[in-house]
């Protein structure tokens, strides 16, 4: 009597026990005859055979397969509806050595996630997407999907899908095959033995290509949904063959090496690295411990109309604080307009950790126009400081609790010949009033904030003059305007 050897059994890529519920720990949650289980098995088998279980991150969608993380003993991320390719993009870029498997249904991929799949494919992200197309929304109970066939009834197309009302079914493979970047696109079907084995081959090929770093790979799997289609499992498989195949023809839509996709020559510095490059001496963190700043904090609100540089001023102050080794926060608030409209930001510099970046009662208000002054001045702390961008206060304005200084920054900037530096003049004025920030850090932050523009020595010099102008103005204004 010869011995039998196991040739096909539960893949090691599946958990031994499915912990989803107290009961049914050895069954998936899929309906009898569902295609998801078969697709899961094909993916799991391919991963196991390639020996990549420990390198795989499985990104599950929203839909029936949302619980894939209960089944796959790999890395798992469950993405928001339709966003699987976007999440997979991030994972693959952060962990390029990983195998990133994006698994989506047709409601997820072809409706709410149309943008994500199209752009991930267009960028040639080196991921594998398995697209389970059953022409219907399964989990939510049979609503019409973008892939629903013409004439097919659903709860939301009870008279059948009519192109004049709901449009035609979306052909995702064909759509993606118009793009340059994808390397492999195939449509397969789980409708009979032969096609199931073709699907197995396609899944393996997609993963093999990803393993070799080839590029974006996509396999659409036409899959039965007996429950929602209201058929027994065998009829459902026949329905794929008879109804779906004429609409969604099987085949390879793309199989070629990736085009040469050049990346920009931007150096890939991390944020910390970039800061180190600028600070050079690298002692910024120690400075805060030893200096006069211990235990001190400063909260500011900067406000004006969009284009006056109030948000940028906030950023500069926050980054200066960062270079001084302080905890900082910067919270902008602005409308959709790029120019005009009102804009303000909250900045907090502190020795301690910052609880909330939202500042209700700032120590300092920098008001770049009258509206901002009237709106925010009442919030300023008692004993606080208000810097107002005019030579005098508006009529009838009274603010007894705070010291108000009129710094005509815009006028001074015009005198310097560059209206844009009004915000830097305000910074100079602020620094004259507060020794938490140093001129040295101000200039280096201005330099790095301006980026390429600062390479022009004249622009940098203009900013230096603006800083000085603000500082000098405050020193000259020996007797601040008092209310």
């Amino acid at each position, binding site marked *: *009597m*010869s*011995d*039998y*050897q*196991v*040739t*096909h*059994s*539960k*893949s090691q890529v*599946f958990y031994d026990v499915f912990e989803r519920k107290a009961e049914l720990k*050895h*069954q*998936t949650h*899929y*309906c*009898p*005859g*569902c*295609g*998801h*289980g*078969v697709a*899961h*098995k*094909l993916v*799991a088998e391919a991963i196991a055979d390639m020996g990549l279980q420990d390198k795989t991150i499985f990104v599950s969608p929203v839909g029936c397969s949302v619980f894939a993380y209960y*089944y796959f003993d790999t890395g798992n991320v469950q993405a928001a509806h339709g966003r699987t390719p976007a999440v997979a993009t991030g994972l693959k870029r952060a962990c390029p050595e990983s195998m990133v498997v994006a698994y989506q249904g047709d409601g997820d991929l072809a409706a709410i996630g149309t943008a994500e799949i199209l752009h991930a494919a267009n960028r040639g992200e080196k991921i594998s997407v398995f697209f389970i197309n059953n022409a219907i929304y399964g989990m939510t109970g049979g609503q019409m999907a973008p892939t629903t066939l013409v004439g097919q009834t659903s709860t939301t197309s009870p008279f059948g899908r009519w192109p004049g009302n709901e449009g035609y079914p979306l052909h995702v493979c064909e759509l993606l095959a118009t793009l340059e970047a994808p390397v492999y696109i195939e449509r397969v079907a789980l409708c*009979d*033995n032969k096609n*199931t*084995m073709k699907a*197995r081959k396609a899944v393996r090929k997609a993963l093999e290509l990803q393993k070799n770093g080839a590029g974006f790979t996509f396999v659409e799997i036409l899959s039965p949904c*007996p429950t929602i289609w209201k058929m*027994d*499992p*065998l009829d459902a*498989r026949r329905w794929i063959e008879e109804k779906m195949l004429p609409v969604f023809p099987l085949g390879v839509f793309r199989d070629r090496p990736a085009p040469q996709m050049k990346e920009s020559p931007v150096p890939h510095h991390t944020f910390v690295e970039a800061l180190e490059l600028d600070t050079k001496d690298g002692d910024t963190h120690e400075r805060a411990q030893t200096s006069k700043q211990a235990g001190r904090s400063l909260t500011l609100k900067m406000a004006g109309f969009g284009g006056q540089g109030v948000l940028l001023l906030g950023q500069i102050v926050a980054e200066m604080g960062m270079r001084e080794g302080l905890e900082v926060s910067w919270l902008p608030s602005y409308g959709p307009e790029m120019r005009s409209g009102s804009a303000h930001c909250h900045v907090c510099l502190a020795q301690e950790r910052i609880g909330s970046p939202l500042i209700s009662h700032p120590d300092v208000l920098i008001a770049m126009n009258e509206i901002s002054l009237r709106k925010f001045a009442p919030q300023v702390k008692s004993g606080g400081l208000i810097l107002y961008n005019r030579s005098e206060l508006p009529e009838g304005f009274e603010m007894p609790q705070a010291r108000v200084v009129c710094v005509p920054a815009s006028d001074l900037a015009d005198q310097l010949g560059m209206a844009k530096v009004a915000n830097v003049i305000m910074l100079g004025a602020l620094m004259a009033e507060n020794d938490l920030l140093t001129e040295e850090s101000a200039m280096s932050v201005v330099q790095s904030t301006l980026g390429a523009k600062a390479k022009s020595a004249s622009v940098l010099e203009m900013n230096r003059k603006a800083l000085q102008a603000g500082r000098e103005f405050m020193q000259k204004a020996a007797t601040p305007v008092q209310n």
Partner: protein
Amino acid sequence: MASQARGKVTIDINECKGCGLCVAACPPKCLELEDGLNSYGVHPAHYLGVDCTGCGICFYTCPEPGAITVYRMSPPPKAVITTTEERNAPAH
């Protein structure tokens, strides 16, 4: 004596959901649904005990990851055929 089947299938009756896909897919038709019910109340599939070739089609058809296990008879050791010259050639 009837020759021993080349393959063998075991089906975990607690994992089977009784969809019947394996029964229809099996090329030698050696699977069927039981008359009795399993603990979940479905008729699970079972192997008739003869004719399995170990092809694995039922495994790929079954949606449950662990319901079906397929075995194949291990092949007998291959007879090594050599010529007289080879046998007489000096060993390297």
